[in-house]
């Protein structure tokens, strides 16, 4: 028999507004939401932890694993509240990190500026040295140029240093030596080496990532150490692990060294939860849809695994546009985030077109219906007007909304300028935000060589269940799953995450002159690094290893990820790798280009525990719909009239219940709209499932 307490896990997710705590014990889940305490986030965490401990009755000593995710690093980067940081780089190349790609991300806007670099030019210091692309030393490190920086570090009161030399990914010797020299005199200095943080070709992204790591490191080190101590004081004796952007857990030591890997851990938790649900429900191709107050996030999940990537931008300041944020190259769950949320503002432009977002009414003043002074119509106002949200019973009745304020805003923002009737104007706003999200989903899928129609959708976040049915219609999706506890989805996702770590190395290699010995030595080195991080946190759980090469046709601009066999390679594997590349390329682009040379730019290796095995959904007996708890008028744009629609309370619906659409299903954190054309069902796991009605020819 397995020990039941092995399942006792505690997850903590610090978001911008709320800190979510989830405790799982013997299959039972306790969740708590407490306000985030931005000045000292550990206070909110400790409050919440004490509450959940009390509620569950599980002693701290019986918790086997703590999993923590936080937006702290992300916020420090966006709000520029990190440490005073300097960058040491190769002479002649101080400006890569600011020149970026020498382009403008918005073609027609003369006013745009790229985000300012985290390290201003006067704190970017050259040292005399030069490496070549194979790591060969062209100019040896002139150590006196390093010693010369010590007074500058002191004079400028530098707390943290990033070191990023040209081609340093191929040979770390110079970067290591620089760290040695500096630490000999300044032992307390925090140093982030690009060859450790992001040993990948492309100087701008590597330096940007390293600067970001250095910038948040002192803050994160202080915070994590403090929290760990406080948790120990409460009696916790188990490992304290951190959620990474890539969806794996890592230990405290690694998190303190590479805090940049902790950005976007919240959304990663959401994607892991969606992946778990996909596995439980046997859904192979899924679009996860998370819609909150200001943004919507979409993620493609195939075979219960979210799409992964190594590129990410933090703080896209200009309409969420690509290029308007700071690039970070770390393993990350690939998502598209757009400015479409409940608070997104609707306007009519010069061409009489309705535009919705990307700007948001935020928490203050919030949508007009909040009655806090908002005068512009938002998506939430449209939902209130159409009867999708009950103004008297919002957020579980905690907040009263003003229908009249929503109507006034809708009239002045949209209905009057376009001479539309008010409910039609509200409908148009909801349609436009739906179109924006549908378009983002389609373009994202195309970018990754995938299709949207025919997928299933998993919807969570406060605003998603209101809009999921309508979005599914637009995307040709027939099934929408709305899980339980979607309000604390990320924290629940953390509980499901495997312990995992990904290591990368850039070593240019032409497939035509493949050298197995060389490649094996790189892989062995990566394997040892990953094991040293994963083994302590895995506590003896079986480990899985995956390897990939980033390959391309010679001269192409971008690489594709090709999975490699997990075994020592031989020279004969060149052919196998060529075939694997051809297979992957064909899957993405539909064809190969015969006769072109193939090259490898980077290698990655991931070691992790196996993802927790989901319990598959069990078939349930059909149950008739109970009598509705009430009725509400819902605007039906197709018929252009109000329809008396039944309202159900979700916690009263037992597995197997079937409810024909249109219907409204309410719960504490959100409301699900079952549009006409869909039926709702409660499945064996108590998830709410919307199924498109079969077309019946009459």
């Amino acid at each position, binding site marked *: 028999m397995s020990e039941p307490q092995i399942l006792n896990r505690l997850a903590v997710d610090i978001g911008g507004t709320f800190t979510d705590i989830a405790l799982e014990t013997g299959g039972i889940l306790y969740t708590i939401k407490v306000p985030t305490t931005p000045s000292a986030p550990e206070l909110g965490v400790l409050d919440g932890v004490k509450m959940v401990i009390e509620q569950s009755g599980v002693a701290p000593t019986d918790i086997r694993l703590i999993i923590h995710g936080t937006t702290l690093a992300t916020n420090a980067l966006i709000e520029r509240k990190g440490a005073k940081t300097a960058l040491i780089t190769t002479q002649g190349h101080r400006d890569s990190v600011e*020149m970026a790609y020498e382009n403008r991300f918005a073609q027609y806007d003369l006013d745009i500026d790229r985000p300012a670099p985290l390290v201003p030019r006067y704190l970017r210091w050259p040292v005399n040295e030069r490496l070549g692309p194979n790591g060969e030393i062209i100019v040896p490190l002139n150590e006196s140029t390093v010693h010369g920086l010590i007074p500058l570090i002191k004079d400028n009161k530098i707390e943290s240093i990033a070191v990023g030399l040209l081609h340093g990914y191929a040979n770390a010797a110079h970067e290591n030596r620089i760290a040695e020299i500096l630490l000999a005199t300044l032992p307390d200095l925090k140093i982030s080496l690009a060859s450790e943080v992001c040993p990948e070709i492309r100087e701008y992204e590597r330096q940007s990532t390293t600067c970001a790591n250095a910038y948040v490191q002192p803050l994160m080190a202080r915070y994590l150490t403090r929290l760990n101590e406080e948790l120990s004081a409460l009696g916790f004796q188990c490992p304290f692990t951190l959620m990474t952007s890539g969806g794996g857990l890592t230990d405290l030591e690694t998190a303190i060294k590479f805090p940049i890997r902790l950005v976007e851990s919240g959304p990663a938790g959401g994607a892991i939860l969606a992946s778990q649900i996909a596995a439980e429900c046997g859904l192979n191709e899924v679009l996860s849809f998370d819609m909150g107050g200001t943004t919507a996030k979409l993620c493609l999940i195939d075979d219960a695994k979210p799409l992964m990537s190594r590129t990410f931008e933090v703080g896209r300041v200009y309409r969420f546009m690509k290029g308007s944020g700071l690039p970070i190259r770390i393993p990350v769950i690939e998502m598209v985030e757009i400015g479409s949320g409940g608070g997104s503002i609707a306007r009519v432009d010069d061409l009489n077109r309705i535009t919705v977002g990307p700007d948001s009414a935020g928490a203050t003043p919030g949508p007009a219906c909040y009655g806090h002074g908002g005068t512009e119509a938002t998506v939430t106002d449209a939902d209130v007007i159409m009867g999708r949200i009950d103004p008297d019973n919002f957020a579980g009745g905690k907040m009263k909304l003003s229908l009249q304020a929503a109507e006034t805003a809708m009239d002045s923002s949209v209905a009057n300028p376009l001479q539309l009737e008010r409910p039609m104007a509200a409908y148009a706003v909801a349609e436009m935000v739906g179109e924006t999200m549908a378009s983002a989903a389609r373009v994202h899928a195309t970018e990754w060589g995938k299709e949207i129609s025919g997928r299933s959708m998993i919807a969570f976040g406060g605003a998603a269940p209101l809009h999921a049915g309508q979005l599914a219609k637009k995307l040709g999706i027939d099934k929408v799953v709305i899980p339980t506890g979607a309000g604390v989805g990320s924290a629940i996702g953390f509980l499901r995450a495997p312990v995992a770590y990904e290591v990368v190395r850039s070593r240019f290699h032409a497939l035509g002159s493949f050298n197995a010995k060389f490649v094996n030595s790189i892989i062995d080195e990566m394997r040892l690094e990953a094991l040293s991080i994963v083994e302590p946190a895995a506590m003896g759980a079986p480990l899985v290893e995956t390897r990939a090469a980033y390959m391309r046709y010679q*001269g192409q601009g971008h690489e594709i990820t090709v999975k490699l066999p997990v075994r020592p390679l031989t020279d004969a594997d060149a052919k196998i790798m060529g075939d694997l590349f051809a297979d992957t390329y064909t899957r993405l682009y539909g064809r190969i280009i015969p006769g072109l040379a193939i090259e490898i730019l980077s290698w990655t290796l991931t070691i992790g525990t196996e993802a927790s095995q989901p319990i598959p959904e069990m078939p349930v007996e059909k149950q008739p719909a109970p009598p509705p708890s009430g009725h509400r008028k819902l605007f039906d744009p197709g018929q252009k009239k109000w329809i008396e629609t039944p309202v159900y309370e979700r916690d009263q619906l037992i597995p197997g219940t079937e409810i024909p659409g249109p219907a409204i299903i309410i719960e504490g954190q959100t409301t699900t709209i079952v549009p006409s054309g869909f039926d709702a069902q409660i499945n064996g796991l108590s998830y709410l499932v919307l199924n498109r009605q079969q077309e019946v020819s009459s």
Partner: protein
Amino acid sequence: MSASYDLDEIQIQILWNRLLSIVEEQAQALIRTAFSTSVREAGDLSAGVFDLKGRMLAQAVTGTPGHVNAMAASVNFFMDKFPPGTMVEGNVYLTNDPWLGTGHLHDFTVVSPVFLKGQVVALFASTSHVVDVGGMGFGPDGRQVYEEGINIPIMALMTEGEINVNLIEIIRVNVREPDQVEGDLYSLAACNETGSRRLLETMGEFALDNLDQIADVIINRSFESMLAQIQELPFGSFEHSMRIDGYDKPIDLVAKMTISETGIDVDFSGTSPVSGRGINVPVTYTQAYASFGVRCVVGSQIPNNSGSLAPVRVTAPEGCILNALHPRAVAARHVVGQMLPDVVMGCMHQVVPDRVPAEGSSSLWNPVLLGGHGIGGESENSKSTPFTINVFHSGGTGARPGKDGLSATAFPSGVRNTPVEINETIAPIIVWEKEYRTDSGGAGAHRGGTGQVMSIGHREGAAWAVSAMFDRCHYPARGRNQGQPGGMGLLSLKSGQKLNNKGRQNVPSGEVVVMDMPGGGGLGDPLSRSPERVAWDVKNGMVSAEAARDAYKVVVSGTGELDAAATKKLRA
């Protein structure tokens, strides 16, 4: 009456949004599958959907304004040759003729008709810059278009779904990278297919059998909105001229802009005649960059379509460098064409002086670097690694109303650079320096963007060659409203020898090429720039302490400490 005339306002709006989304998806499909690095990395492509009257209904927002009107004009040439009534399902057409496409042989345009129930309902078009078209290679040295590569007239790439194998074979034997070029042609056809599929789905969803009503709405509303914004400007004629370096002699770009109730007319009469080398501009490319210049100031938020483009009309007399006729050489037409927004904005400045930036570096600094056997002019060169790479870099942009110019940033082109580490990995070059160029940004209340210095050597010490197509080396980017000009560009060898800023030249073994890229012009009186901002620029090495004193009358130490008292005295 057909169903398509029953669209209500909301459906129209959804449909318009949908068309814009469809062309973005079309462009994304092209970027994903293209071979040419300038498409994949830099976004040098365009994609759009057209109705049967040849009107462009939507165009993807991509990296290059050079295709804006050019592709729209091109589709009409296709329809002249193959009227939609004669088009057959499964046919796909193409051309790279500079005068029928987008201005040089490297750009291939592919047009695909969309069929619904056996009838043509729309056309998708896409353009991309391919790696090679044979001839002498990408550069400004051609004397006639014949030397610049293979020219394919408008013809079928596919007939009823079957690829034109004869055409492909002819192209393959004429270009240096046959697999990549063939791959790019397929990717153009494939992205049109993606667009077609989505359009048909959408028409099904809305039960449409044609696009007549939505096309009329898009075109009329965009036209009226653009016109309304123009009509808010003062009417009149405004002239402006700008002198640039040219290939071997200066070129005057002369514009007369007339703003009237019916729109904006830009005429380039008085502009210098064609050049004997490949920097001539076919008129569609002139129209693209001139109208882009207008659109940056007026109506920038209106999407590109035939309606929004129509109120801005651009003409240039035949035989001037901005309306070069066949068989003039045109390969490097960008080096002149990318100057046109500055010229147009010079006219615009007289109309709305507070909405117009200063002149910038403007033309890309995108040399072709070549090495290997037979290149570099030294016989012992036969053992050095062969390479040809085209790198994209930029000087500074002009200062903007209320803001400094952008340093080392492309404008009006939207092209991205390639990382130094990637270039050094694929070619045996070494970039010794790539940093901002102190004092190259024109002084002003708002400073012009600084240029950059790039020094490039050969890791094997061999001789090599650089194909230069650079401007602003003899005539700088000028400031406006008392702003100072930006620093001029310079191409030289580290040993001191000056090189020509246009044309292919040898780099002797052991030498290093230095590219000093120009800065943008300043905007407003330098003496009105706050001393703190000048001091910050000195602290960061963008401006020297000497220039701070001379141009701004601000006293700063070499490390950026402001001497407020001395500054006050100096400025008094």
